């Protein structure tokens, strides 16, 4: 399968990439690892007359943990997330989730920036970023601006990012408490039938704070404030967990596809959230 013709650009800086975007407008698109975009181009579901490969922009790479804040460059690969001991110590849920994405070859090339910016509801990082209350930095012709992950996603493949902007980095506070990312998939490399990111803080045996987000159960990731609120103040016992699951089910909106009918997806979402809460609590 061969994509339609395009011109290839490999700028060496963000400014140079923005200049190509500005010059070609809708005809240009930036590419990170390309493991979502290239298959779409091969299937001719995406037509990109000017492809801007971001691989040479070193300022888009790297992981920094400073003063309790984690900053990750958009071009950091899943493999680099997994192999960073510093990141695993500061936010173990990142490694746990990244290991569940695709397969080894894809993780060597696929990036966190591509994963969060593509707006594919099947991607795992958007839900996790909402759970972590991460901030995305976008750079465009008028400078940089920040958007919360919880406000970024509008619909499938539709985000707050403008066509002339590049998502350059992601930052979030090192999470406190127990964390778990749980994912049900049909096979290696598949998107989630349902996945849950959970962070729970425990004080005196009670849930002091809870953050819960779900993946691939709506046309955007779903941050369920109500599910978290159902746990806060409880001892994370069976009743509280059931209340959290009920609240989460009220927030998701799955559609039937080859992963199953709506009822099945809701069932799996409940099972996965229960497991994630249990595991996060055991680590809190």
């Amino acid at each position, binding site marked *: 399968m061969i994509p339609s013709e395009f*011109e290839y650009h490999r700028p060496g800086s963000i400014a140079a990439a923005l200049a190509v975007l500005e010059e070609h407008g809708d005809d240009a698109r930036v590419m990170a690892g390309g493991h979502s975009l290239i298959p779409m181009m*091969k299937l001719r579901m995406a037509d990109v007359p000017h492809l801007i490969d971001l691989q040479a922009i070193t300022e888009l790479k790297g992981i920094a943990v400073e003063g309790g804040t984690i900053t990750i460059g958009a071009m950091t690969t899943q493999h680099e997330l997994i192999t960073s001991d510093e990141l695993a110590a500061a936010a173990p849920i990142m490694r746990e989730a990244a290991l569940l994405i695709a397969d080894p*070859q894809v993780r060597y090339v696929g990036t966190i920036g591509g994963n969060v910016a593509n707006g594919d509801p099947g991607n795992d990082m958007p839900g996790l970023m909402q759970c972590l209350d991460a901030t995305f930095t976008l750079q465009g012709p008028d400078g940089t601006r920040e958007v919360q992950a919880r406000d970024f996603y509008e619909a499938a493949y539709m985000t707050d990012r403008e066509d002339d902007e590049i998502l350059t980095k992601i930052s979030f506070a090192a999470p406190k408490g127990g964390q778990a990312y749980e994912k049900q998939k049909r096979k290696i490399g598949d998107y989630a039938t349902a996945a849950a990111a959970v962070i729970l803080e425990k004080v005196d045996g009670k849930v002091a704070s809870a953050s819960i987000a779900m993946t691939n159960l709506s046309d955007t990731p779903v941050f369920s404030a109500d599910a978290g609120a159902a746990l806060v103040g409880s001892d994370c016992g069976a009743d509280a967990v059931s209340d959290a699951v009920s609240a989460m089910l009220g927030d998701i909106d799955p559609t039937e596809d080859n992963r199953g009918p709506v009822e099945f997806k809701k069932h799996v979402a409940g099972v996965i959230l229960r497991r994630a809460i249990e595991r996060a609590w055991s680590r809190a």
Partner: protein
Amino acid sequence: MGKQIITLTVNGEKHEVAAEPRELLVHTLRETLKLTGPHVGCETSHCGACTVDIDGKSVKSCTMFAAQADGAEITTIEGIATPDGMHVLQEMFREHHGLQCGFCTPGMITRAYRLLQENPNPTEEEVRFGIAGNLCRCTGYQNIVKAILAAAAELNASKEAAQ
């Protein structure tokens, strides 16, 4: 959008090749450089038959444009063997019947090569997780896993003997 000249170092040899931007790396390797080890299998980034090693990473060469690899160092299955003969992984795949039809084998071995570079002493589970991006429809993976574990043991034994 004509062809552009790109430089690829493949199996230690530097090549300058002309490729359209839309040309996938696997086609450059197979059709221009006549290295037919990387196979075109699923063409959708699932099967791993096209796996090559690029700058120390296992990559599906059907999901990368040749232009993206401009300047890169690439190893294909053709570059895995040593001047003394087959690589230990190749020997062990033969010894343990790690292949039947052989279609997935170049990708499997190229992937296993990188896996053992990163983790010279993997458990069975780590081998299975490490080759999860490579599909085999013949063997049920049992003998592939055995071959990779045997190769790891062999490589470790010869490393110890050398010390």
